[in-house]
């Protein structure tokens, strides 16, 4: 993104912004496809509707219209962080245009579909792309302003009125997040024959949501809200959990989406556990999914499933605790080499443990894992006389089956978040961060690094084991195939994509990595390819993740990829400084 900054002289900023915004508005009002595609009218009737009701704008064109109008207003009204806001809107419009153009062109058999064919014209996507590019160029011509800081004490309020006002802001903000999550989940429908255009609609919506969040971030709103929520932590957690509980009551409260959301919750919980090991303590674990697996198989054997060798039938809470404990013990065992092994080598040790687990599970070790035939027939969790796969009636609302699992996983994720947050600010958390930054220095300061590192593995593995117990009940089968190396990489990618060492990061990362494949099933063939490329690109352009940890930035000056010499680190610092300088220069231009 920064590459594009300052391509234009400042004088052209406003004309480009205005023209770009206007083009986005126009694009939203133009037809997008010249003819009816084979699978029916293009999403939101971008073709047909134009002819019978050109102004009845819905779906992605409605979103584009919102972006365009907002940009048009902001092009003339000065607000703090204007450049950033407009840039975000520009990228959003561009994304919507590109998704539409590519999809209609490839589906409709060529450029004719998005330009002119059979006497009709449909330049919507092309105009949107042009508008997006113009807006991005225009918004960056004046340089990228700093994100404005908003005070957390506002309107001259103090005492309980201030607290009340802050609470209102938080409720509104989290409510907005809930609404956005619900919209994101349901955007485009569940795909398949019923929704042939689910993929592009969803991607276009992501462009819109990204533009919205980017604009709010650029205006300093997200930072303000996050600081408010830090100051009112207890209340925020309460609201957050309440919002999560409210999700089934929204559009997204169908059986299908509840199941998806519960699965995401399992992976999010696991990712937070991994985040303790990788994000806080800086220990790279490439076999982490094994702990999820251990928890899963232990729980399966204690579930009373007919196919399990042990066949014990324990109440779920007991079984889950045992599963977590066993996983934790294995975590400590896997972590014990950290006493002697560091860095890359430790990563390989964990990879080896993961592979040993996978192979052993594949071969039905001790007849505990069922091998290739897995352990089927695991009964659903049953507590208080209710089986968790039953639908539920609550406050007069019919909630679909699977919703109980969703509620359970929300509680577990909230608990794990609380554990993580407390650990991070505890003595042990500071020890972990110290180890991550410089292990030798940490040791010199009197931190018992060995104990701390093993504890990190133990805690992380325990959380994964707990998640595994829920996972296996929800799924109904425990199969070794769920725990292969690629899953470990995916979890790691979730942590990195979200931002190492931060809670929202792990949850966001897990959500993205597990929602996207669900949403884009028609591109399933390319899922892994995109995943691999995404890993490369993230590391190249945003290694700190989407929600960076403030402390963690310090690490950039530490150990480097090419060895540990201080000179190199210094040299790199100089180079970085230069880059920053030249970037500033570009910005100024």
């Amino acid at each position, binding site marked *: 993104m920064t590459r594009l900054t300052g391509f234009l002289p400042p004088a052209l900023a406003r004309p480009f912004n205005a023209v770009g915004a206007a083009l986005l508005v126009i694009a939203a009002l133009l037809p997008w496809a010249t003819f009816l595609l084979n699978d029916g009218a293009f999403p939101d009737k971008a073709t047909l509707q134009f002819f019978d009701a050109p102004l009845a704008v819905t779906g992605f064109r409605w979103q584009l219209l919102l972006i365009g109008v907002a940009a048009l207003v902001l092009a003339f009204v000065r607000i703090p962080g204007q450049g950033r806001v407009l840039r975000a809107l520009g990228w959003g419009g561009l994304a919507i245009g590109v998704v539409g153009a590519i999809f209609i062109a490839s589906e409709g058999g060529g450029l004719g579909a998005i330009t002119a064919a059979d006497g009709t014209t449909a330049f919507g996507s092309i105009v949107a792309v042009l508008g997006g590019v113009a807006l991005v160029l225009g918004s960056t011509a004046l340089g990228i302003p700093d994100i404005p800081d908003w005070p957390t004490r506002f309107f001259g309020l103090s005492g309980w009125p201030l607290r009340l006002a802050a609470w209102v802001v938080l409720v509104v903000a989290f409510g907005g997040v809930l609404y956005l999550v619900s919209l994101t989940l349901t955007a485009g429908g569940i795909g398949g024959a019923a929704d042939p255009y689910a993929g592009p609609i969803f991607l276009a919506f992501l462009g819109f949501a990204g533009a919205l969040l980017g604009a709010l971030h650029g205006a300093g709103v997200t930072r303000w809200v996050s600081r408010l929520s830090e100051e009112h932590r207890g209340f925020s957690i309460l609201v957050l959990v309440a919002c999560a509980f409210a999700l089934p009551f929204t559009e997204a409260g169908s059986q299908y989406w509840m199941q998806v959301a519960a699965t995401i919750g399992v992976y999010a919980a696991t990712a937070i556990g991994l985040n303790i090991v990788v994000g806080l303590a800086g220990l790279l674990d490439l076999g982490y999914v094994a702990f999820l697996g251990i928890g899963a198989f232990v729980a399966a054997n204690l579930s009373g499933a007919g196919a399990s060798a042990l066949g014990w039938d324990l109440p779920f809470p007991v079984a889950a605790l045992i599963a977590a404990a066993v996983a934790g013990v294995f975590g400590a065992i896997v972590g014990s080499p950290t006493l002697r092994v560091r860095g890359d080598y430790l990563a390989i040790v964990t990879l080896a443990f993961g592979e040993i687990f996978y192979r052993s599970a594949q071969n039905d070790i001790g007849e505990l894992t069922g091998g290739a035939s897995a352990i089927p027939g695991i009964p659903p969790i049953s507590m208080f006389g209710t089986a968790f796969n039953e639908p539920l009636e609550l406050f007069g609302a019919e909630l679909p089956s699977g919703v109980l699992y969703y509620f359970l996983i929300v509680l577990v994720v909230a608990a794990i978040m609380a554990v993580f947050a407390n650990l991070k600010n505890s003595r042990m958390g500071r020890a972990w961060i110290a180890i991550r930054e410089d292990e030798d220095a940490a040791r010199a300061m009197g931190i018992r690094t060995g104990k701390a590192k093993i504890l990190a593995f133990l805690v992380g593995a325990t959380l994964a084991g707990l998640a595994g117990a829920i996972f296996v009940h929800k799924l109904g089968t425990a199969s070794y195939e769920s725990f292969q190396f690629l899953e470990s990489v995916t979890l790691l990618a979730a942590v990195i994509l979200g931002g190492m060492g931060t809670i929202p990061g792990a949850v966001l990362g897990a959500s993205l990595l597990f929602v996207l494949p669900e949403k884009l099933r028609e591109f399933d063939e390319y899922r892994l390819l995109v995943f691999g490329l995404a890993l490369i690109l993230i590391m190249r352009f945003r290694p700190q993740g989407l929600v960076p940890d403030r402390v963690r930035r310090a690490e950039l*000056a530490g150990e480097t990829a090419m060895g540990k010499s201080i*000179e190199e680190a*210094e*040299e790199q*610092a*100089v*180079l*970085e*400084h*230069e880059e920053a*300088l030249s970037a500033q220069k570009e910005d100024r231009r």
Partner: protein
Amino acid sequence: MSALLEVSELSVAYGAIEAVRSVSFVVEEGQIVCLIGANGAGKTTTLRTISGLLRPRAGDIRFDGESIAKAPAHLILGRGIAHSPEGRRVFARMTVEENLLLGAYTRRDESGVQQDMNRVFELFPVLGERRQQKAGLFSGGEQQMLAIGRAMMSRPRLLMLDEPSMGLSPIMTQRIFDTIRELQQGGTTILLVEQNALAALALSDRGYVVDLGQTTLEGPGHDLLADERVRAAYLGQG
């Protein structure tokens, strides 16, 4: 005599920390010039910037009339500047001979390289006797000889020596300084960085005092030796 190396208002930073703020000096062809100053004054950083290991933030470095401020490290040697780094940095797991051959890495004239190697062995007979031994087995003084010899192997026009006397016995230090004199007489221009200010200034045609990243004083070596401020600050005499 003309200026072989001209450093003007050089500024180098590690991140936000400015290690060198404004260093300017001139090295004329055939001279020995030394930079003296306290630890952390920015002398080593200056040399590392001249050889391209660090990038200047501002200022210019001109060698033989051309700016080399932006040239990458591996091309600096080819222009005729050899750098014997602080702490010797010999390749410990390679033999003496291999270390010297690396010094001549950019040269393709094998017979000339052989000749120069023999010259190094004449200058430092102990290296010749143990040419097949790994450099890591050598004493500090011997490693320093190897580092200087290695820098000579490229037939530089300008030889930069960073703290050649560091950690050496007085006798060994004297030998190294004698060698530096010999090299100068053989036509090599020398830029010397030393904490041993007394010996360095006595040897140098010209000296510069670097303090907190700035060149503060300059003059012919003997004048600086006599300067009271220098005596007070660096020679331990009030």
